[in-house]
């Protein structure tokens, strides 16, 4: 018969290790499962910019860092621009890394928008990066990206027949 003292000690030690592992590894449960594969986002961005360089800055992409439900994620994007007749944001493109399609949405603006700011709600299939690219009237591209942790994924579940 095993020494009860020893069994309890080893049980507590194991439990302690597990607790520490759970506390330190702040990863959602599904992170251990197969990740949704990367889509061809870099290629989609190259197609959009036709090889022009994409600068970082000017754009501000707001998404919650931790998402419980990937079906409805508030997205807010704004671009620093005077929005005048000669200097304005032509379009804002939103891309994702791990949804089945890289394109999320494109917003066409103009000087009559007054402000370059758009908000919508999006779906996210997995923990991933979202990229916003602004196309300015002078032909330059500016971008910002946001990383999100998603615990309940959208897009890929089954429907009752």
């Amino acid at each position, binding site marked *: 018969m095993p020494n009860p003292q020893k069994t309890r000690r080893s049980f507590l030690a194991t439990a302690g290790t597990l607790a520490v592992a759970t506390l330190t590894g702040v990863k959602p449960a599904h992170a251990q499962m197969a990740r949704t594969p990367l889509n061809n986002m870099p290629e989609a961005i190259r197609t959009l910019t036709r090889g022009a360089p994409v600068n970082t800055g000017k754009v501000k992409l707001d998404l919650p860092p931790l998402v419980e439900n990937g079906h409805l994620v508030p997205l807010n994007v704004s671009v620093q621009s005077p929005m005048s007749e000669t200097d304005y944001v032509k379009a804002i493109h939103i891309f994702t890394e791990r949804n*089945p*399609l890289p394109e*999320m949405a494109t917003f066409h603006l103009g000087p*009559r*928008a007054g402000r370059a700011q*758009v*908000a919508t709600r*999006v779906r996210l299939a997995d923990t991933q990066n979202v990229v916003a690219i602004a196309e300015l009237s002078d032909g330059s591209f500016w971008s910002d990206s946001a990383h999100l942790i998603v615990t309940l994924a959208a*897009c890929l579940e089954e*429907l009752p027949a």
Partner: protein
Amino acid sequence: MNARVNVPKTAKRGEVIEIKTLVAHTMETGFRRTHLGAPIPRNIVTTLTCNYNGVEVFRAELHPSISANPYLQFTTVATESGTLEFRWSGDNGFSVSEAARISVT
């Protein structure tokens, strides 16, 4: 099918006004399957255009990554009194429009 828009009733000339729109739609992605394995065809809203007295001031192209019942919030400059017309269109001939009056002082 119905749609809602929120546009201020009055505004000062040159003021940047905030517009909120919502349209009822399932936004079926086309990537889901039934339990029997049959693919569910895509059925989404693909565009929203906003015309201010006949001139396009905003247009959005949407993809399956946009949530069901697409919500969009954007801005425009109140230039003159008149009508803002919103038109959503999508798969399977989906087409809905809505209008809002604004008086600019």
